[in-house]
């Protein structure tokens, strides 16, 4: 492989993981914007979506049907979690809410272990086809699916939050809870919907990337943390920022693994996170807003 093709190869792997990080970051942002909560269980939906699809396809369901059903199932689980577990302690301290989402993550991961066991599962690619060759680098067709799904999801999110009454109402809750509730918007319903969106998008990310990974019950932690990194670099409450930061993170990570050190790539990424949190708490693209006390 030539120099150039190696660099292109790293770029492709960066795009792949970047799409995943961007989707998860967006799912975190939607929940955060509407209900001011960062869900530490977001990675579990990534796993549940992917493994549900593995099970459904292995039962002989056609790919498109399994795809839609897996997203729906994850969305319903997300909404139920919000309704049953988050709402009762909604007015508790942030510390308790953080611990609650950690508890939910343990419970969901534990359930996934019981359903799917400890072994790794692999999903068949969405479409058959030989890898493409671009500038000497290999491109799996699944990568095109991942990027395509990301683009479609982002468009749907944009459409929902900008062009539908429900979406605009949810944005109103994000801007001003009291004001929104005075206008007759149910903030509870908005929080529920935001969880449904968040878990659905998290599941989509997992399903899209599952054919390239060995997915097991515990695979959710790292994507969640990377999604959070992208979210904080993007400025916590900005969907556009989260997307840009997600791709940036994926590409930086891919080149770090390829060119600097594969062993210490995560060390470097986590150090970057701490540096961003400390010096640029409003994100690299965020306005210089003062930190909330």
């Amino acid at each position: 492989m030539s120099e150039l093709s190696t660099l292109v190869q790293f770029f492709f792997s960066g795009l792949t993981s970047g799409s995943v990080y961007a989707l998860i970051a967006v799912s975190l942002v939607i929940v955060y914007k509407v209900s001011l909560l960062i869900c530490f269980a977001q990675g579990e939906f990534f796993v549940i979506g992917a493994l549900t699809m593995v099970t459904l396809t292995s039962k002989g369901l056609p790919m498109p049907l399994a795809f839609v059903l897996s997203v729906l199932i994850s969305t319903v689980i997300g909404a139920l979690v919000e309704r049953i577990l988050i709402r009762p302690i909604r007015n508790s301290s942030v510390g308790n809410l953080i611990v609650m989402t950690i508890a939910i993550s343990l419970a969901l991961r534990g359930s996934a272990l019981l359903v799917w066991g400890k072994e790794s599962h692999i999903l068949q690619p969405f479409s058959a086809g030989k890898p493409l060759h671009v500038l000497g680098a290999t491109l799996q067709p699944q990568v095109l699916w991942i990027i395509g799904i990301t683009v479609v999801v982002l468009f749907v999110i944009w459409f929902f939050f900008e062009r539908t009454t429900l979406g605009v109402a949810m944005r109103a809750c994000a801007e001003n809870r009291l004001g929104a509730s005075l206008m007759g918007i149910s903030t509870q319903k908005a929080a529920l919907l935001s969880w449904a969106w968040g878990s659905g998008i998290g599941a989509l990310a997992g399903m899209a990337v599952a054919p390239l990974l060995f997915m097991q019950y515990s695979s959710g932690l790292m994507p969640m943390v990377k999604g959070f990194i992208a979210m904080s670099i993007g400025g916590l409450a900005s969907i556009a920022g989260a997307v840009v930061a997600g791709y940036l993170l994926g590409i930086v990570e891919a080149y770090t693994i390829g060119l600097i050190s594969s062993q210490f790539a995560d060390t470097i990424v986590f150090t970057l996170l701490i540096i961003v949190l400390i010096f640029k708490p409003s994100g690299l693209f965020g306005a210089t807003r003062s930190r909330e006390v």
Partner: protein
Amino acid sequence: MKTLGRIWWIILLLFIVLYPPTLGGMSAYKSGIMIFVGIYIILAVSLDLLMGFAGQISVGHAAFFAIGAYVSGILTVKYGASPLVALIAGMALSGAVAWAVGRPLLALKEYYLAMATLALNEIIVTLIIGLQWLTGGASGLRDVPSFSVPGFSFDNHVHYYYLVWAMVLLVVASSLALVRSPFGRTLVAIHSDETAAKTFGIDCAAYKVRVYVFSAMYASLAGSLFAHYMGFLAPDDFGVLTSINILVMLYLGGIGTIWGPALGAVFLKLLPEFTYQFQDYELLLNGVILIVVLVFMPGGLFGILKSVAERVNARGSG
């Protein structure tokens, strides 16, 4: 109830001293279980100082557990240091790391702090995996010797049990003394309202860093004790999941009470002994316990005991 009566201390001491010859039957296995319990009590109590009293959330406490364990392991295995020296070196390094990162890290709040501490935990674990020549990497560090002091080796599990529990008592007693001191009351003040504490002229950042250093050094002590007991160290034991496990102990027992987290550690570490045929359910059970505690019993096990004791007392005096 904050001060445990003298009678309870005596009962507790008697139990600890008499456990190996009676319930433990002098067996290495049964002492071993209690060694684990003791190590986790130290971890839970040390996190309680930081989270329960100073109100600083940490999802990365296992970072210091790891530093203690690996400093002890590396110094004794690769450099032939005496375990006692290695233990002290581990505590010194943990304290130094906590001191160095404490100020900027603890200036963060809530989600930022949770994620930053989680990142710190991951940095330590990825370093352990990456620095293979030093730590043995993912395949682990073998042949860590038993703990010893000049003239005596704790290679018998019953002897080691007594050493670990002496440390447990030391950590619990010193933590209780710490939280009842003016220092501890200042931490509580910072926890309840940092801005108000500042207007009283309290240097909040300095206090938070100090309690972080304490907390880290105790966790490091637990790590060293763990290393010499296990004889083998692998990065899996020190990941974020371990940190979360300690968090569950804290909330299960009753955060901010020192005794509570200790109780939580006992409960959570003994539970698998009774449910070992349901090992796969452990993760789910941890999650469910945590959820139940958060929704229905915010005071944890210690809170329940406390209210029972108060009811009994009220009936007795009434």
